[in-house]
Every structure is written in C-alpha cells, then in structure tokens.
C-alpha cells in the first residue's frame, strides 16, 4: 500500500507545516481540524489551482514533468528528463505539498494531476508493447514526418479512416509507434515521444528569469517625467471630481459610467478615453466619487477632506489603492460588445494586484531602464505563467506611468520610495503653491504655478478656466462674474480679492466689468405669490397691511399700490369681506369678475355605487339562463362523477362510433398540468388528432386533443 498525502503531511514536523502555511495561506483559514483535513484541503481543486498559479514557469514545468513520469517517481529519473537544476525545485514543490514523498520517491496528489491534465507537456498515454526503435531507421517515406509533427504534442492525430490508412501510417500502427484510439484518431505513445525528444520532456526549459531588455534612461529625466505625471494625475482626479460635481453623470442601469459620459470626461480633461477611464477608476477606488442611490455619480465628502491633504498623502493613497485593486481599467470599452464600462461591475480580474506587484518589482530591480513591452511580458510570463496576459502587462505599465510610479517607462525615485515605504518627498519635488495671480488687460488671469486651495476655490467661482497645466489661465467674463455673485460674493469683495491676489495692477476694464455686472445683478427679483391685492388708494393699502385681522395672510407690500399674499384669492376675498372691506376679484387680464370663479375638481367623476332593487329581467336573459341551467343539470346529474377510463384504441373507436350516433358523451380530459376533469360533450368530428365537439359546460365548440382524452362513456 503506497503512502498518501496525509501520511506525507503527518510525517512533516512543525517547521515544515508552518512553511506550508506560509507558502499556501489559504490552507490555514479556517484552521483544519486535523492533518487529514489539511491534506484534503491541500488536495482540493481551488487550493491546488491557487498554488499552481503562484508557481513560476520553471517550477510549473518541473511539476508538469513530474506528472509525466510514472509513480512512484524517482529523483534521478526526473533529473534525467529535465535538468539537473531541478533538484532544488523538487524540494520547493514538496514544501508546498504539490508533490509528496513516498519513501525515497515522490508522488503527485490526484488533483494536481487533474489540473496538469492527461497530456502533460503534450505527452500521450503510455504504450504497453515493447518497442524496437531500431526499426525507425527503416521507416517508409512519410512515417517519420508524421512522428515529428506529433512529437511536441498534442499527441493526437486525425485520419480519415484507420482501415484505409496510407501505408506509412499503417506501418507505424503495426510497429506500435502509433496507437489507434478510435476509427479516426491515432495517438503517439509517451515512450515514442520521449525517444524522439531525446529523452527530455521539454524542448527548452529555463531555470532562471530572462533578462529585461529596454532603453536606458537617466534617473534625473525619469524623475522629471514622473513628477510631471504625479502632479498631472492628481490634477486630473480633482478636475474630474469637480466636473462631476457640476454635471453629475448618471450611472448605467448595469452600474458604471456610460460611453458618452466617459467621452465627455475625456474631452473635459483633454485626454483619450482609455486614460479617462483610468482616472475615473482611481477616483472611484479612492472613494472620492460614489454612485448614489439615485444613480447620480457624485463626489463624496471624502473628496473635501482629500482636497485639504498634502500631495504626498494624496499620491500615496492613489498609488496604494491602485496597487491593491483587482480592477483592470484597460478593459473599459474593450468587451466583445463594448459593454465593459468604467466604474462598472465587470472590471475585476483576479491576480491583478499580483501582476502589478510583479511589474513594479521588475521595474524596481532594473532601475533607469524603460523596458520593451515584449521583454516585460516575457518576464511576467516566466514569473507567473498562469496569470500573464500581454494586454494586462501593457495596461499596467501605462497605468504605472500615468501614476508617476514610473517616468519615461523606468521606475521613478518616488515609485521606489513608495515600494520601500520610504518618505515620498513629493511635496518637495513639486513646485511650491503660489498665492497670487497675474491679471492682464484682455480680462485673463494667470496663476504661474499651482494655486493654494483657498485662492483656487475663490478663482473657480469668479472666473472660467481656459488652460490647465503647471499654470492655470483664467478668463473673466460677465457669466463668470455673475456666478461669483450668485455664490454670495459682492462686487466690492471680488475687486478687493483680485487687488489683494494679483501681483499686477487691476486693469480698468475688468473693474468696470465687475462693477457693471454687480450693479445689474439682482436688479430683477423673482419670487412666489399666491394672490395679490391692488388698490389705487394708497391709504387703504396702508390700512390693510396694518390690519390685525389679516395677519395670517403674510401680506407684503411690493409697491405703494400692490400687496402680495400667500393665500388663495378666494380665501383672501372672504376674509377681507369679514374684516369689513369690499374686495372684488379680477382675472388674469385684470378684468373685474362679478363673482368668484366657481371651483371645480380636476378629477374625473367617480360616483359611489348604490344598492338598487332588481328590475324584471328581459325574456332573452331568461332564455339564456334557462339554457345554462339545463346544461348544468345534465353535467352534474352524471353521478357518481367518475372519470371514464378507456384505452387509447378504444377511445378512438368509441368516438367514431358515437359521432355517427350523435350521442352526448362524458369524457375525461387531462389539462396541461395533468389534472383530469369530466366534460360533457357532443362529438362532431375527428381531424388531425383532435376531437371537435360541443362542450356543454362552456357552450362552445372546442378542439380536444385525443391523446389527452383519458376515457369516453355515454352520458346518462
């Protein structure tokens, strides 16, 4: 009896078990009850898959090779078919419980074998016959070509008909160099393939990671580019949130940002849609925007806190969340039906954080190098063959660049510090915020650097932004000034603020513009009134407004001869009358109406029901009632209400018989749910498997399907 995985695990000491837990953290939560449970879990498919995904190409190849050998596997045999470097790897795999020891030999747990598949490394099943490879020298023409085509797998070949196989294939089959699987399929036995592969399982097997190739960069240039990217991404994020605060997009029903909104955001930021999707995603995962319950996408209160934080903190938050997020923004718009949307539910891809970490680690290990995409992908494929995807690699590289983790493709100092959890030093590297602007005579103002939050907010309300970047160009216009006034500023306050903030003298036309707009702003007032009182006698108006009895109407004097009230005109009129005045109503055009307008409900008439005495019925109605009564009688008098049962042949025969006799019949009829009911009918004819008959209970001609008729009997 061979050893099992649980036996193997049982023989491990605590250190080794701890190592296993570290290598495969999913085994420890929840803590298994005993070693048997641990072994079961270690051999469970999800756990095996997870463990295999974490292998690099070399480890995976060795594991595949192990699966290709017959159990129990000897180390010597493995080294012979792979490479002598494999020894250490076998120990690693064993430590991960992906193989286990059986004495001096090794075995592979069943699910690992299942995962690797029936044809590991493209090797077919073992043959049973002993083979004479010497014969191959005398193989007929074409036979060797067939073998060569199949030697690296897949080991299956299709032919038209094995009985009429051409001579060379026949020869191969006769000499057992091929096995017949079925009448159209041949297999290359494992031994033959191994012989053809010169006793090695893999064409080539790389025990070490390939070197990363690319263009070399200067760290100074890299950091310059990175800092530009860092300030840009933070500006984009804030700009996007501000934009969405002004014009909140509505989320799609499936969740996520619509194509049109994405396009709009991209245009607003002046970037392409791929980049806009990324900005939207980081803004979303940073919790700065949220999809509200009414589907509006709006900035959260966290965004206000965010605005007050330092650049270091802002960037650190973005970089951290990006790194840990499993969302792949590059997928946006790439779905087969273009349905994958930013902020949507379809962006999660397992393994994304691992790929991101691997990518950054690779960049970090190769400073001042802007790697070629192909080389990067080759490396990732070696490190995580199960997860590598060239599109993902490309997207992760460009996202790292957008974030400023890299600059000009190479890892930036900030990226490195981020990975080493060092002080980022971004605030020092970025230009210092300025607290002044330069106003020019063409009504534009320029902030020659990033503005302090306070000035930026104030400028945002009174001017429109024309150009963004290291500096900001603002333009003052009538609309922008009006917006400032709408926000509660006054003309003087705006002028004071600009005088204080501008390093250049305030141009006179701008001052005039502000004064002009302020002068006109609010000159027209709009409010709500329900009714009004007008009177040419101003004394009377004064008397009414001071009349205590009319206090509850919220009367307000708009002009010497006009009062407005918050109540309906009818109510106002009656109260005025009670108070001893003599009001009259007027209509929309000011014409006096002699009586108050009659009030009407807007709903349609809906009179209540009443209980009335029945009138004598019409003769027709009585006739109909009688007929119905009779039928009912006929139907119910058929007692006991047994469902007639006849065999199928009998049924048809009886029906034909009674159609000829024009009798009234009782049939059992099954409904679509299988329930059987009694029907009293007068059969008319049979056609196409249906019986056409008059049904007494409904008083109609009905088509009955004959197979559903359970039985027929003559009605009594």
């Amino acid at each position, binding site marked *: 009896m061979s050893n099992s995985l649980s036996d193997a695990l049982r023989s491990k000491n605590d250190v080794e078990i701890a190592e296993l837990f570290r290598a495969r953290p999913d085994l420890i939560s929840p803590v298994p009850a005993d070693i048997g449970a641990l072994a079961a879990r270690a051999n469970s498919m999800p756990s095996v898959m997870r463990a295999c995904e974490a292998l690099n190409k070399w480890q995976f190849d060795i594991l595949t090779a192990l699966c290709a050998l017959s159990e129990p596997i000897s180390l010597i045999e493995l080294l012979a078919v792979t490479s002598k470097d494999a020894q250490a790897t076998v120990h690693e795999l064993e430590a991960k419980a992906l193989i286990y020891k059986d004495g001096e030999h090794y075995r592979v747990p069943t699910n690992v074998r299942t995962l690797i598949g029936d044809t590991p490394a493209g090797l077919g099943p073992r043959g049973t016959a002993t083979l004479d490879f010497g014969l191959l020298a005398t193989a007929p023409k074409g036979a060797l070509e067939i073998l060569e085509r199949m030697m690296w797998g897949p080991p299956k070949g299709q032919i038209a008909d094995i009985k009429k196989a051409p001579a060379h294939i026949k020869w191969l089959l006769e000499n057992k160099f091929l096995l017949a699987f079925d009448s159209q399929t041949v297999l290359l036995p494992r031994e033959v393939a191994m012989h053809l592969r010169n006793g090695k399982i893999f064409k080539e097997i790389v025990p070490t990671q390939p070197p990363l190739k690319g263009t070399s960069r200067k760290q100074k240039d890299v950091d*310059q*580019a990175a*800092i*530009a*990217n860092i*300030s*840009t991404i933070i500006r984009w994020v804030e700009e996007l949130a501000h934009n969405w605060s002004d014009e909140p997009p509505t989320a799609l029903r499936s969740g996520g940002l619509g194509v049109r909104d994405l396009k709009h955001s991209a245009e607003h930021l*002046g970037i392409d849609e791929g980049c806009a999707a990324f900005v939207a995603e980081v803004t979303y995962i940073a919790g700065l925007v949220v999809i509200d319950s009414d589907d509006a996408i709006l900035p959260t209160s966290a965004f206000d806190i965010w605005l007050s934080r330092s650049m270091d903190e802002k960037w650190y938050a973005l970089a951290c969340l990006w790194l840990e997020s499993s969302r792949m923004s590059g997928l946006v718009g790439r779905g087969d039906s273009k349905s994958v949307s930013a902020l949507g539910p379809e962006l999660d891809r397992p393994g994304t954080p691992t790929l991101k970490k691997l990518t950054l680690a690779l960049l970090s290990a190769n400073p001042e190098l802007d790697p070629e995409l192909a080389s990067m992908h080759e490396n990732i494929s070696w490190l995580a063959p199960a997860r590598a995807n060239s599109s993902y690699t490309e997207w992760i590289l460009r996202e790292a*660049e957008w974030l400023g983790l890299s*600059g*000009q493709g190479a890892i930036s100092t900030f990226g490195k510090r981020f990975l080493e959890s060092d002080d980022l030093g971004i605030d020092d*590297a970025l*230009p210092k915020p300025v607290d002044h602007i*330069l106003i*020019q*005579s*063409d*009504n*534009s103002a*320029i902030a*020659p*650097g990033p503005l302090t939050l306070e000035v930026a907010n104030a400028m945002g309300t009174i001017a429109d932004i024309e*150009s*963004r*970047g*290291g*500096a900001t*160009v603002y333009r003052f216009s009538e609309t922008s000034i009006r917006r400032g006034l709408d926000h509660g500023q006054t003309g003087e306050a705006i002028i004071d603020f600009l005088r204080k903030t501008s390093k*250049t003298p305030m*141009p*006179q*036309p701008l001052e*005039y*513009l502000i004064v*002009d707009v302020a002068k*006109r702003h609010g000159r027209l007032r709009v409010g709500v009134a329900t009714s009004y009182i007008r009177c040419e006698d101003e004394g009377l108006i004064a008397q009414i407004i001071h009349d205590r009895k009319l206090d509850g109407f919220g009367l307000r004097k708009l002009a010497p001869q006009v009062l407005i009230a918050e109540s309906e005109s009818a109510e106002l009129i009656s109260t005025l009358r009670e108070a001893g005045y003599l009001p009259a109503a007027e209509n929309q055009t000011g014409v006096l109406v002699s009586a108050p307008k009659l009030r009407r409900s807007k709903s349609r008439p809906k009179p209540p029901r009443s209980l009335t005495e029945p009138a004598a019925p019409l003769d027709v109605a009585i006739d109909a009632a009688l007929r119905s009564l009779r039928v009912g009688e006929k139907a119910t008098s058929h007692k006991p209400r047994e469902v007639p049962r006849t065999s199928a042949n009998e049924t048809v025969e009886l029906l034909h018989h009674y159609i000829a006799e024009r009798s009234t019949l009782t049939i059992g009829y099954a409904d679509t749910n299988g329930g059987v009911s009694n029907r009293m009918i007068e059969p008319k004819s049979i056609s196409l498997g249906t019986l056409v008959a008059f049904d007494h209970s409904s008083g109609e001609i009905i088509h009955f399907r004959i197979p559903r008729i359970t039985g027929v009997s003559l009605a009594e």
Partner: protein
Amino acid sequence: MSDGPLIVQSDKTLLLDVDHLLADDCRRAIAAFAELEKSPEHIHTYRLTPLGLWNARAAGHDAEHVIDTLLKYSRFAVPHALLVDIAETMSRYGRLRLEAHPVHGLVLVSHDPAVLKEVTRGKKIAPMLGLQLDDETIIVHPGQRGFLKQALLKLGWPAEDFAGYVDGEHHEIALREEGWSIRKYQAMAAEGFWHGGSGVVVLPCGAGKTIVGAAAMAHAKATTLILVTNTVAARQWRDELLRRTTLHEDEIGEYSGAKKEIRPVTIATYQVMTMRRNGLYSHLDLFDAIDWGLIIYDEVHLLPAPIFRFTADIQSRRRLGLTATLVREDGMEGEVFSLIGPKRFDVPWKEIESQGYIAPADCVEVRVTLTDAERLNYATAEVEDRYRFCSTTATKHKVAVALAKQHEDEQVLVIGQYLDQLDALGEDLGAPVIKGDTPVKERERLFNLYRAGEIKCLVVSKVANFSIDLPDATIAIQVSGTFGSRQEEAQRLGRVLRPKADGRGARFYSLVARDTVDQDFAANRQRFLAEQGYAYRIIDADDVLFGNRS
C-alpha cells in the same frame, strides 16, 4: 527644477513670462515651432499645433530640438505624454512627398506603403489621384496640388512639397535704399517668406508691410501680381514701390475698375477680380495673363471666397499674404493658411512699438450714458435695429463732437459705420466726409489735403478701415462699427499708428453706449487689441462733456 520663463500647459499652450531674464532667448527659440496666440502685458501665449510643428520640420528642426527647447526653458516638469505627442506629430511630416516626375508630372511618393494606402483610401483624396505607378508612387491629377495638400493636412499626413515653384518670367527688381533702409524685422519677414516659399506675414498696421512686399519682390526678381483691397490702396502701393524699388512707372500697371493695365508688376483690386459678368468671373484670367513669379495678397484676412478657390489652382506659384490681423469672424483663418501658406512671420505689436516703428497708442473707451428717452426707445426697438439705434444716438453725437473739438489742433479721424450719422457729424464738425460713393479722385484729393495738414479733421466710413496711409493722424474717434468685428477695431487703430514726426503718441477713442448691445460688441471688438497688450482705459462721457480733460 529650473526656473525658466516658459510654462508648458497640458493643452499644448505655452505661457511665456515676458518679464523673465531669458524671455527674449526663449521667444526666439520657440517661435520656430509654436504659434503666437496673444501677447498681452505680462504673459504671452503660444500654441503648439501640428501645423506649427510641421512647419518647423519643413524649416529643418527635428523633434529632439523642439523637445530640448521646451525642457530647457520650462519652469515646471513637462508632461511626458506631451513630449511623446510632439515626437509623434513631427514624425508624420515628410512620409508623403509631392515630387515632379520627369514623365508623369506631379506624383505623390511615400516609402511607407501603409501610409500611402491609408491616404488613397480617403474619399476626398481618391478623386485627386490618378494611376498608381508602383508601390510607392501615385500620379496626382494636374491642378490638384493645392487641394491635395489641404486634404492631406486635414488627414494628418502633411505632404512635403518637393515639386518646387515655377520661377515665373524674370524681371529685374531691387530695393533702392536711398535715404532709408529696410528694418530688421522687415528683412527677417521677407527672408522667412522666401525660405518657406509661400506663406503669410503678420505685421502690425503701420509697420511697413509694403516694404516686406517689395523685399519679397526683390528676392523673387520676377513678374509680380499684387492684389489689394481698393483703388486708393493700389495707388499707394504703386507710389511706395516707385519710391522704394528700382521699378519705373511704366513697369507698374493698375488693374482696377478704372484701368486695365497688365505690366510686369500689376496691382489689381479684389473688387475687380471678383466682378462677375454673366455669372462668370471674367477677370480671373489675369492670373494666367503673365507667367507670374510671385503673387502678393495685401490684407489677406479680407481675401474673398472666389479668390480662395482660385488660389488653390495656382499652388506652383509663390504666394505672399500680408496682414495685421489674421482673425476672421467667419473662422476661415485655417483656409488662408492652407491656401496661401503657413504663417511665416509674426511679431507682437508692442514689440514693434518698443522699437519705435509704430506710435504708442492710448486706447480709450468712452462710456456714453443714454438719456432716459433714448433708453426707452432702445428698449422698445426691434432686436435687429438695436445696435444701429444705440450706436447712433444724439448723445453719442454730442460726445463725438466734443471730443473732436478738444483735439482740434491735431489731425483727427472720425470713423463710423452709419452714413447718416457720419453726414451729421461732418456737418457739425465742418469736416469733409469720405464714404463709399465718394469718387476715387475726390478721396485722393481729400487724403492729400489731410496729409498736408490743410484739413484737420476727416469723417470716414468703413472705406478707410484699412490700407489708407495717413501718417500724421493722431486721434481716431470711432462712433460705430461692424458689430463685434475684432479686426476692424485693430485696423482702425492702425490708421493712427504710423510713427509721428515729433514722436507723439496716438489716441484711439471708442464711443460706447452704456448698458446696451454696443457695450457687448465693444468688449468683443477690443479683444484682439487687448490680446496684443493694448490696455483700454474707460472714461465717462460726462468727463468729456464737462471739460475734465483726460
């Protein structure tokens, strides 16, 4: 982080801090590839456009040079994406080439078959092309050179034109620098044009664009067709050419409503070129009358549409466009560039002013408060009549007269749009009025009297908006205009910008009715000048009327 004078914005505008020590160096360096957009007092705005970058390529600058320049002068880190974009844009230039084939005439050549394939599949481009000779060469239908270049530009694959220009009929022309010498910027502009082959030179009014034209002719030494706005301008050109070049009177012809002379140098008016008889432009043949070596378009911002179309046909001739204000309210600036050629030279107005070649100007907006009766009439006027109403009110008239009286010792021009308004002003000021129906002879007589100082005040309609050279006018009073036209405002200011003998500054008054559409239009009109650094001052009409002399 350097502390350079340039801020590179992510929308591809470049902000140049003119007060910075390195501003001048930087301006020179970026002028090669960026287009000057505006130049107010403190920060000038340039823009990186594909066209500008391709022109830089054409002039021999490569992407690396452009990027190095930006990095060198930039105050902040330059976004990497922008640099990549510059390199990519510039690499598109020259993949397609127009060449003269010894057998097949004009051909489109590219060593990149994919690009060739892409452009030939374009619906607009396919009809312009003929047979494909091989993988890299396609015949271009004769006469389509201009349209093809324009269409390729729109597709983003500008063709490098190696087909060259026809030299035209040789004619000896040289500058005659006797008692004057060509200014440095004029020479640079002419050279910039000559080097590029075709294009537009932008210089402020009064900065001597005629001399640039003459210098270009001296470079070409060939028969020249000059297109100008009107007969008076044509005669001014003629006089100027006689004074500045070796040309004789009988070498210069005038092709206008009055005369139809075709000489080695012919000056034609746009009006006669676009005149139609039986639905045909009967005078467009002038373009083929002589094998012209150079065609000059004066005031190219006014280029009328038929001439636009014709220009596309004559791509093999050298073309020079001259203007002070390349802004068209119809947004056709792009057409001018693609048909005449790119901007070859542009310089901020204030820069020429600081060199003393144009007079410093004080722009004043006079806010006129309408009387209550006028306001009421204005409010009830039909929307389309409102501008006319508010810009011709009696109050404005009174203010205009008062202003003119204030400056009665100086040479005053009163400029307006509405003829009855001008007639009334002429009457009250006792000044002659020049408008569309004034005969050319009479116009010339009045202008000459004015130049001689015998008339102190002239009232002119929009016929005097441009091209009229009145060196001693110092005061312009604008009472009404063509709605919000930016270039009209600038051109009118241009009438008083010729440097004065005594170094005096010029003053430009614009009368604006307060709280009316006049004020909105004025704000738009002033934008071009404000962007050139002319800061308007606003005064109240009452200050004029009640003697607080400003």
